[in-house]
């Protein structure tokens, strides 16, 4: 089978201006930050981002002017605040926020994953959020009677999914060590037309075969694999390393002001000539080791 190993820069070429990008992200949990930084460097524009809960990658992409739309359930960096650059852009009307409850978002993506025009949920019933999206959400009756009303959620098929995982082989069999499995890795890739995976390590297929039940994405569902150790930094990658609290605080401090945010992105995203240079710039081995200690504490 043709190997799928490529670089972040080449993988990002699979993403065009105007694309809908499904992005793995929770408040501070694993996000494919190497690819996020690459999109900022390559100045992608007019992206629609799909997240369950957007954290720092959403704020950075918003600050860099990459986004015109966000589809998801929440945006927050939890203890590090509310993603001010993103929030201000929504308040200005520069980014459209298509807000969905978790089950409604998952129903839309699950429908695309399964080739269905829609799936249903009882979430969102009687909220104000349904009428805000008549093209995507519609209240329908149980055709068998007796079951009451449900919300039909129209299929949402992103152009590309970006996820980060522990390891893969060159064919694209992607494996996770025991950890939280959020919907962003369980259904985002299946719903999307192309899938780009960054991983902590590239291994031989025989290593994957020792734990076949821990493969989260089979080779045929993966288009590109990028080797990116610490590729989730500054988000966490349990059980390998924790989130970088200092980096998050540095960003939230900078993100209060557009100029400071730009300077921060220049220093940590646009400036470093390589992934290794980025890691050196955020504190190098010393910092990364301390994050590893956090994860194994």
């Amino acid at each position, binding site marked *: 089978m043709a190997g799928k190993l490529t670089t972040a820069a080449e993988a990002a070429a699979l993403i065009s201006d105007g694309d809908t990008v499904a992005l793995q992200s*929770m*408040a*501070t*949990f694993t996000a494919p930050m190497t690819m996020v930084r690459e999109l900022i460097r390559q100045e992608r524009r007019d992206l629609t981002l799909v997240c369950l*809960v957007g954290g720092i990658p959403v704020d950075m992409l918003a600050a860099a002017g990459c986004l015109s739309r966000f589809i*998801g*359930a*929440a*945006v*927050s960096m*939890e*203890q590090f605040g*509310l993603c001010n650059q993103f*929030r201000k852009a*929504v*308040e*200005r*009307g520069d980014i*459209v*926020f298509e*807000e*969905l*409850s*978790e*089950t*409604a978002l*998952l129903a839309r993506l*699950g429908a695309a994953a399964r080739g269905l025009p829609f799936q249903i*949920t*009882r*979430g*969102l*019933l*009687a*909220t*104000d*959020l349904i009428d*805000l999206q008549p093209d995507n959400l519609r209240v329908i009756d149980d055709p068998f009677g007796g079951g*009451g*009303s449900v919300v039909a959620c129209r299929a949402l098929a992103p152009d590309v999914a970006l996820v980060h995982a522990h390891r893969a082989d060159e064919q694209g069999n992607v494996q996770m060590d*025991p*950890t*939280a*499995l*959020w*919907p962003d890795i*369980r*259904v985002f890739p299946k719903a999307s037309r192309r899938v780009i995976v960054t991983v902590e390590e590239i291994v031989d297929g025989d290593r994957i075969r020792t734990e076949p039940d821990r493969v989260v994405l089979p080779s045929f569902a993966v288009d590109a694999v990028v080797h990116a150790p610490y590729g989730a930094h500054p988000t*966490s990658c*349990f*059980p390998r390393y*924790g*989130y970088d*609290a200092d980096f998050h605080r540095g960003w939230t401090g900078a993100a209060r002001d557009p100029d400071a945010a730009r300077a921060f992105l220049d220093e940590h995203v646009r400036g470093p000539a390589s992934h290794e240079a980025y890691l050196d710039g955020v504190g190098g081995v010393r910092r990364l080791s301390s994050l590893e200690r956090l*994860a194994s*504490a």
Partner: protein
Amino acid sequence: MSAPDYTVDELMIARVARVFENGDQVVNGMASFVPVCAYMLARRTHAPDLVWLAGAVGLDPRPQRVPASTLESDLWRDSVAYVEQYEDFWSYALNGRWLTKFMVRGAQIDMYGNANNSAVGPDYHRPKVRLPGTAGMGDMGSIGKRLFYWSSTHDPRTFVERVDWISCAGHLGGGDERARLGLEGGPELVVSNLAVMDFAPESKRMRIRTVHPGVTVEQVQEATGFPLLVADDLGETPAPTAEEVRLIREEIDPDGTRKTEFR
């Protein structure tokens, strides 16, 4: 025996802990220190078999102490199971048999127990304040859960007459509107930093049940953006016991992380 000294976070945690019993299953989301401390307290006191799904991931974890995040792996260390979320957690949550009580916090809560975490202001698309988003509350309000609110900011900005946008369905317009739409469950209790409130049986309007020690009904009303009902049997919120305070301070949250909600 009530504690000689305690703070309002400890009182709220002790009060919230009493909501949960053996046989319940509970879950927490992000920045949820009051619920997490309350679950951990209940498991150490009257409800040792309370099933806790930390962060909707880790089943019955053994965290050493409350960490800085309630949606990170530190919280679900040493779990007996990691529950995959897309298919497993949501089936358990939506089924109706499990996870029947759900704790919610809203940037706005109104007199009928509707909550808003979406947007402040009349123009949704150009909001005065863009809030984080409905996340799971947009589901939990509609799928029959018994809702329990907590709020560390009892003020007229949080407790508003009508939320700008209903992103969590409470009693809607009050009365039997919720039942008429076929929705079961709904808001039962609000534990704030000033008082404990429920919803009157007929009107479904928010009603003071107990005021915290040292707080008057008038102070609660003044901090609320709509007229509150007052229960006939109005009482005082019980102070936490000395043992409860000790557990919170020494075992559950020695770093005092819970206080970040009370800044």
